[in-house]
């Protein structure tokens, strides 16, 4: 009993050290998949599964704390090199690297690797070109490329019904936030991870704010054209019959207008959506090499 209590106490003490060491993060020594594959002695699938569990844990622990993921790409790369046929890591890596890390090139790299490796007969295969298309459309506004990927996704038997319609819209370069929302909602449906789902929901709300503000700005300009001044409040737009009602703000705030500058904004969500330009390396540093 004494010994058991003793080891328990000592273990508790040691955990303080472990926690301190973990801040340095043991993933610094993660070897590349190319080395691990032969070293796994035929257990590459087992190893891939273990690293996959680690990847999900890594994401889960950082999404709730600092939201920095310097090793995420490397982890996904190791998993997908050890087991190239494992579809889900590509999908997960593709979403997280674009949405959370803000590194489009890495996201594309992961998804394209999946495009080449995963069997086309996999029921979720279409998600890979779908998310590649999403990256091109949503972040880069490159509708031509997006349409090409979406066409690829639309050819797959597992794809949703509305996809061919989207392709047509993309070819018409008719981008509206509504199209982006449709994609995000599909992404939300397809994701199982709770934390990631929450991040996507957040992004959906942001796009809704973006869409609403765009709409309100258009109505504001219309108002100004006829009356020569910005409206005093958004309610004036409704009274003028330009919009049926002020849209509901998804973050629980309200939309307001600055009568002097004409700026339309949300009381809860201040920043407008960032659009990534092609070739931009991403907002955060230290995300690993592509």
């Amino acid at each position: 009993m004494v010994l058991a209590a003793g080891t328990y106490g000592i273990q508790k003490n040691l955990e303080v050290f472990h926690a301190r060491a973990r801040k340095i993060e043991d993933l610094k020594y993660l070897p590349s998949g190319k080395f691990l594959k032969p070293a796994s002695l035929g257990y590459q699938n087992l190893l891939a599964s273990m690293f996959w569990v680690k990847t999900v844990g890594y994401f889960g622990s950082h999404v709730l704390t600092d939201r920095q993921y310097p090793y995420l790409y490397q982890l996904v790369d190791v998993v997908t090199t050890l087991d190239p046929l494992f579809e889900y890591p590509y999908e997960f890596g593709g979403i997280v690297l674009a949405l959370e890390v803000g590194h489009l090139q890495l996201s594309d790299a992961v998804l394209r690797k999946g495009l080449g490796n995963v069997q086309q007969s996999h029921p979720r295969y279409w998600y890979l070109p779908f998310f590649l298309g999403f990256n091109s459309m949503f972040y880069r506004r490159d509708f031509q490329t997006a349409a090409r990927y979406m066409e690829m996704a639309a050819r797959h038997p597992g794809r949703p019904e509305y996809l061919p319609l989207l392709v047509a819209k993309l070819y018409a370069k008719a981008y509206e936030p509504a199209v982006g929302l449709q994609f995000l909602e599909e992404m939300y449906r397809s994701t199982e991870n709770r934390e990631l789902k929450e991040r996507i929901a957040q992004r959906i709300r942001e796009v809704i704010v973006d869409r609403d503000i765009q709409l309100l700005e258009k109505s504001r300009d219309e108002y100004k054209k006829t009356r020569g001044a910005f409206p005093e409040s958004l309610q004036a737009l409704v009274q003028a019959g330009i919009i049926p009602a002020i849209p509901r703000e998804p973050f629980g705030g309200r939309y307001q207008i600055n009568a002097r500058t004409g700026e339309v904004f949300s009381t809860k969500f201040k920043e407008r959506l960032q659009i990534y330009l092609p070739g931009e390396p991403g907002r955060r540093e230290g995300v690993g090499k592509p």
Partner: protein
Amino acid sequence: MKIIAIAVNTFREAVRDKILYSLLFFALVMMSLSVILGNLTIGEQIKIIEDFGLGTISLFGVLIAVFVGVGLVYKEIERRTIYTILSKPIPRWVFLLGKYGGLLLTLLVEVSVMAAFFVLLVLYYGVGFDFALLKAIGLIYLELALITAVALFFSAFTTPTLSGLFALGIFVIGHLSSDLKIFGQGAQDPFISGLTSFLYYLLPNLENFNIKGQVVHGIPVPWEFIGWSTLYGLLYITGTLLLTVLVFQRRDFR
């Protein structure tokens, strides 16, 4: 008949070995762990369970094959029981083959226990049972049989510790041998490329028995491949056993 008697006896002796049960216990623990890990992660939980299951069956099978395999002949010599056996009208090759048969039986029981547990897990958590998983387990068993033959070969002339190390070494090289070939093809020196290709064909290519990845992803494995792999395994085992008999025949027991 004598072979069967020795085999049954060897089996009885092996199942008394505690190491067998501890390894089996850890194998089952590891497979159960995969259920928890599968729950923690996202997407294709069944894949995690299958990866862990097949990996565990193979990994612990190898450990059992080596650790139980290397000790059996040595124990007979150490306890001097080998004199009473070999003084009877039993040829040495019969003794060896009996030992090998007993080990195969032990492994068969052991793999069956693990496989049964695995099948239950897959049936419980999966959407259905893929018959191909049994193909993978069958080839794993063949690989184990080959490693056992190698372990027996080494244990015919050296100590259990050394033969255990040698057998594990062959296991490692057996999974790397295709790299050996690639290395040899890249070499400029004709001697080195000759040597590596000689070693490549001499050493067992254990990747021939590894269809775990294909099976988990539902890629069909043609029966033709399984047939050739089985034939390869059987030939290799026969060769190894012949060599073992040759070594064992000449050995002097004092």
